[in-house]
């Protein structure tokens, strides 16, 4: 990873030196304080922490009229939510296709591309573009974030720009590296081997009026994973397939905006725990967020997010029974109520605060951990206050 980041930095500085007029660079710095109370989702032992840091630097260099290179590196610290450290967010060649026919445009990204298929996925790590520091976990599950952010491969986008409506068609095929933190989220902390993503295949379609006042879309994801155990492992070799279908919608008015996404995901697992083990789980959920703009500088947000781990067991009672009581029923679902305030102190400076009240804990920790129950109470809360600057 260090080599990739060093390469990205070298590439960006070379492009900057080559031509000032064709190179642009931007960045952001955000630091906050945060706490999860009654859950280890962000912090252990209900501690208040400064582990809410996001720093990023990007560059965009236009090689020719239709060809550009874009890259971004970032440093993230989100407490227990994901692996702390520097990472290459994206680095790809952007090829704008010649006009296909009247009003149709095409664009291809090759390299580490960003996931353009969901409302917030393309700039999930960019604090000033997000509604809240902790995004709705039904869709933007932090345990699975690096896989959902983008992948190494190819992404194509075709847009039809009409006088009244715009269509966006996106397709991508690639693979992501899965680190040990994400492995633990998927298979529990007893797993010591390696998970490899065979591929992730995604497609989406969005419709907007040319005024961009609203946006509706649908997306599909299909991905295969393979687990190879280590020599001393509590897991066996196995594989899993995840398929996700999602609907997204946004509406913008002069003083308010609303966005919502609903999803259904089907996880099909084989092996891993016993040679003949097979399980199919269907999870469902979604969120709605409403923001009111009091004036140019201040806005408030309310939101609701819900997710059930298995639709055949919405209250988690079977989960508790099958685990012999070691996994409480409330780990089968998670409902979150959110309020937030955003204050644009000055151009490019923002202070954002939020509070989440949560019932259930299915997105807190892997349900395959031995100590699941110790990670969250049935009711818990989290909050954050973050100052951000971008340029």
């Amino acid at each position, binding site marked *: 990873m260090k080599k990739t980041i060093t390469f990205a930095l070298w590439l960006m500085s070379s492009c900057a030196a080559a031509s000032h007029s064709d190179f*642009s660079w*931007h960045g*952001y710095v955000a630091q906050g304080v945060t706490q999860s109370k009654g859950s280890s989702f962000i912090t252990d032992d209900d501690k208040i922490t400064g582990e809410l840091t996001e720093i*990023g630097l*990007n560059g*965009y260099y*236009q090689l020719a*009229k239709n060809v*550009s290179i*874009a*890259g*971004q590196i970032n440093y993230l610290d989100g407490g227990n939510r994901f692996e702390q450290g520097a990472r290459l967010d*994206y680095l*790809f060649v*952007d090829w704008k296709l010649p006009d296909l026919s009247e009003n149709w*445009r095409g664009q291809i*990204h090759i390299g580490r591309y*960003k996931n*353009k298929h969901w409302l917030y996925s*393309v*700039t999930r790590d*960019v604090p*000033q*573009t997000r509604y809240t520091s902790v995004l709705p976990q039904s869709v933007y599950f932090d345990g699975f974030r690096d896989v959902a952010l983008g992948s190494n491969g190819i992404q194509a986008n075709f*847009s039809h*720009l*009409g*006088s*009244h409506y715009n269509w966006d068609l996106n397709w991508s095929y690639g693979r992501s590296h899965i680190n040990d933190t994400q492995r633990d989220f998927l298979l529990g902390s007893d797993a010591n081997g390696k998970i490899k993503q065979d591929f992730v295949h995604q497609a989406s379609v969005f419709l907007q009026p*040319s*005024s*961009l*006042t609203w946006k509706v879309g649908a997306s599909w994801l299909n991905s295969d994973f393979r687990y190879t155990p280590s020599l001393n492992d509590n897991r066996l070799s196995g594989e899993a397939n995840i398929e996700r279908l999602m609907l997204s919608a946004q509406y*913008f*008015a*002069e003083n308010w905006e609303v966005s919502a996404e609903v999803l259904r995901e089907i996880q099909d697992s084989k092996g891993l725990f016993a040679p003949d083990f097979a399980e199919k789980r269907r999870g469902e959920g979604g969120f709605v967020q409403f923001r009111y*703009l*009091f*004036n*140019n*500088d*201040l806005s408030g947000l309310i939101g609701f997010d819900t997710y059930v781990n298995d639709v055949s067991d919405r209250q988690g009672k079977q989960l508790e029974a099958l685990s012999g009581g070691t996994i409480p029923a409330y780990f089968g679902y998670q409902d979150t*109520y959110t*309020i937030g*305030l955003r*204050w644009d102190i000055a*151009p490019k400076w923002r202070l954002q605060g939020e*509070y989440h*009240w949560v019932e259930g804990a299915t997105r807190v920790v892997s349900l395959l951990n031995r100590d699941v129950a110790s990670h969250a109470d049935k*009711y818990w*809360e989290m909050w954050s206050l973050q100052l951000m600057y*971008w340029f």
Partner: protein
Amino acid sequence: MKKPALRWLSKVLAHNRLTLVLLVLAGPIMAGHKVKASELNVMVNESVMVAELSRSELRQIFTGQRQYWSDGTKITVFVLQDRDELHKQFCRDILQMFPYQLSRLWDQITYSGQGLTPVRVTSYQALIDALENTTGAIGYVERTDIVKLRRVEVDLK
């Protein structure tokens, strides 16, 4: 558990009421350039040989979907800050969009490597200077101003 959460919410709302009032009062003071409705023109640098654009074409240019003029010259878009009245007027009357919508879109483009976004200048004079001195530039100015720029007729149908 629900009760403490609701108590917290009511405290937050009560406490923020004062902040909200102060900010609402400060809003008009913090606003920038003042201009009345229908008093702005869309202008391009003298190098741009375009006399008329439709609203839909303007939207494509200001949302980064169209980056070159038909003769191959690169389009450079200049705008004022979101709080500036002239910018708000342009967004509302010409593009029929909201400034925060455009800001969000530009941020998404900038921080995901999708392309180049408009250059935001900090003063009205800086906007005119940039438009006059940048080949392929497009922006807006007050209708009464005499500037060394080419005016573009906008078809608002």
